[in-house]
């Protein structure tokens, strides 16, 4: 969806995308703490639109058009010739800015939706075995953050009990050192505990495994470049899709080769079944419609405010976007069979908002 949003500038299509995303989230989200992030992203999007319009009004390029109102023009020295402050404001430029802002806001909304539907921990669980060590490190770090907050609290209290200042620079220094000490202590205990519980057991790193790890890393890099290409059709003539494909293949090879040798097993892995495929496919369908439409030059995909006109609504693209509604019904229901009641979100719904990104990196 995010990719689709990047590829269009038609405000009506953008609004439609936003509605679809919000609808799916509303249908599928859980009560977990991260579920509230959509609202945050929504507000962020509104702010983005506002900023974009204000910037355009104040600093915007003065293109000819229907003048809305005029701001006093601030004279600038000659070296700042490219920049103008104030001057006449046209309907076209404001509209263009608003649409640009809207585009950015919709992209943000899509990521917000991804966030509110997926638990970071469950995403980590989906990491392939090759990257297991990295995954554990991230998990430990994620649990660490709240503990540091707790440690900060106790240290603050302790300083107050000792009659020392808790504010200001002296207070900060006195806080940081014990907290860091505590953090180091904890990490030592944690390391001992992990060791005693078999972490890193019988770890042999044969050559092919190292090659596999290297291949996955390279693949990941290529995937990232490819995604960039896919998102920004202007930067790469080939559109980045081939690089994405090569990267994905490399990543897949690396992961299967590396994963096969690992003696470690996974507890209750998340199932990947028909509904999950459905979600991914519907995401791809949306993306596909837009890519095809872009290549074929369907009118209405791009919208410019010059000259001023009402945007037309391309039927094909509307249908394409509406396919994105399917996950609301398709996605595995929270707490349904095969799903752990723990975080009753559908992590599988996650690929949909940015199908091009996550779908491939899996």
């Amino acid at each position, binding site marked *: 969806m995010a990719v689709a949003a990047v590829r269009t500038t038609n405000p009506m299509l953008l609004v439609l995308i936003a509605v679809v995303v919000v609808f799916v989230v509303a249908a599928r989200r859980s009560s977990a703490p991260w579920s509230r992030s959509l609202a945050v992203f929504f507000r962020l999007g509104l702010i983005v639109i506002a900023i974009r319009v204000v910037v355009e009004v104040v600093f915007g390029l003065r293109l000819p058009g229907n003048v809305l109102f005029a701001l006093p023009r601030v004279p600038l020295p000659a070296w700042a010739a490219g920049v103008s402050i104030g001057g006449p404001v046209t309907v076209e430029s404001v509209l263009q800015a608003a649409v640009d802002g809207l585009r950015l806001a919709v992209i943000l909304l899509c990521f917000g939706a991804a966030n509110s539907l997926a638990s970071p921990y469950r995403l980590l669980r989906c990491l392939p075995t090759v990257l297991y060590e990295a995954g554990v490190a991230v998990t430990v770090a994620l*649990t660490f953050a709240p503990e540091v907050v707790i440690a900060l609290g106790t240290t603050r209290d302790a300083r107050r*009990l000792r009659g020392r200042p808790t504010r200001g620079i002296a207070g900060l220094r006195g806080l940081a050192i014990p907290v860091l000490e505590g953090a180091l202590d904890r990490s030592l*205990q944690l390391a*001992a*505990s992990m060791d005693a519980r078999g*972490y890193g057991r019988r770890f042999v790193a044969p050559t092919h495994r190292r090659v596999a790890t290297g291949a996955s890393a390279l693949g990941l890099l290529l995937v990232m470049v490819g995604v960039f290409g896919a998102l920004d059709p202007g930067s790469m003539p080939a559109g980045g899709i081939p690089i994405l494909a090569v990267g994905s293949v490399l990543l897949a090879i690396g992961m299967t080769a590396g994963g096969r040798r690992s003696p470690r*097993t*996974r507890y209750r892995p998340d199932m990947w079944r028909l509904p999950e495929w459905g979600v991914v496919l519907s995401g791809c369908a949306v993306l596909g419609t837009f890519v095809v439409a872009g290549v074929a030059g369907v009118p209405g995909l791009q919208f410019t405010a010059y000259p001023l006109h009402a945007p037309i609504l391309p039927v094909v693209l509307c249908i394409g976007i509406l396919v994105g509604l399917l996950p609301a019904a398709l996605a595995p229901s929270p707490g349904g069979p095969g799903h752990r009641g*723990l975080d009753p979100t559908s992590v599988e719904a996650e690929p949909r908002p940015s199908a091009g990104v996550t779908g491939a990196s899996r």
Partner: protein
Amino acid sequence: MIRFTDVTFAYSDSDQPTLRHVDLTIGEGEFCLVVGTTGSGKSTLLGAINGLVPHFTGGHLSGAVTIDGRSTRDHPPRELADLVGMVGQNPSATFVTDVVEDELAYAMENLGVTPTAMRRRVEDTLDLLGLHELRHRSLLTLSGGQQQRVAIGAVLTASPRVLVLDEPTSALDPAAAEEVLATLTRLVHDVGMTVVIAEHRLERVVPFADRVILVPGSGEDLIVGRPQEVMAESPVAPPIVELARLAGWEPIPLSVRDARRMAGPLRRRLAGLEAGLPASSLPGAMPEPLAAAERVSSAYGSVMALNRIDLGIRRGEVVAIMGRNGSGKSTLLGLLAGLRKPTKGRVKIDGQEPGDLPPRKLIKLVGLVPQDAAVLLYCSSVADECEAVDRESGLLPGTTASTLDRVLPGVPRHHHPRDLSEGQRLALALAVILAPAPPLVLLDEPTRGLDYPSKDRLVRLLRELAADGHGVVLATHDVELVARVADRAVVLAEGEVVSDGAAREVVCHSPVFAPQVAKVLAPETWLTVDEVRAALTASVR
């Protein structure tokens, strides 16, 4: 199962070996209790079983430790993970994941257990430890007792043959501790697991133990034997054993049940002497309490930690606050110490609100020793710490050092506070708090990790403080401590005062909080061995 052959171990920074020529065999399915004073080498002995000593701690170990034929010399702890499960004092520091179920599965994932077997074992463990209702909970939101059970479960799922526990119940309230111990006994009897456990509060564990290993410390030979034999001569003994020594019971009873069956004659001798007990009524109506909480409520978000509490503390009184884990004890102390302000109501100490005072004035009014005394200390040596307190509180140089000598003589001045034993560290923290001479002294779980000699000293010190006119409040799970030191006991539950009265009455009438002596001699209300001893000698005279 576990075999120590001529094991000598010394930490790299010490020239005295902690363990010297230890020969020890622990058989399959034994419940072994390791006792000893703090710093005697109990934890070292336990750590040597799964190889954390010396693989993780450093130091030099000679001789051999073999577990089921595997030597810790060739097998680092991770290679013994399927054989030995290790549970530490502080479970929250050992959690790797964030959710109960994942934590239980973690060790199995490392061991490469197949998913179906993993699933089955997790379910079994959840049932065995009664954790099934918590399976999806975040580990950070669990209470201490729950966390400890999860930590035990997390090593159990790897189906080890040996379970090693270092003071597993020290942070738990009496009920939660019973729960953990009952679980362990069940494992020994039903599964035939070998359990090695170190514990200070012997009264909780001795009845369950098959064998007791006494670590005398300073490298002397271990004393190993059946609980009755070792307890008869052990320097550390639960009250029930001391009572038995006093009454001359033979063999020494270890459980309340055994003791009650033998206590008939003693009870008859003591009948009628109860009048000689210290007055159970509170010291007469003192006009002005030192500190008072008036209809105090405190909330964390939507959770009410305290709900309209009324509490007055007089000078010269030791008040014990008891209650389950999470019943609001620490919150109440925090309010009294001015760490936070009440959501509703008022706290007054000597007419001032502690929450409004700047830190420098606050420490002259009230001092709190938190649960983990180490957080109070941050200088790099004991001497520095003392000087820092003198300087910052504007005391005469040497005040803190002399306070420390009064609390506990002989704390090495050049040591880092982290290297002190638990008892020494508590003494230092107490000295730091007591040096500015606040009239109100608060202690949160002061006996955590303390051995019996340190506890005796603490009891004497608290009585002295009360006699000097301080008001002392302690929040604790340790019923034996309450029996010995408190004038008044307040029981909290769900943020409300359930009972408030003379310690003798409150404690004796609760099945959970009654000390062992009271249980043995019920229905009469004797609390401690010392009282019984005093009454007996008086009656003979």
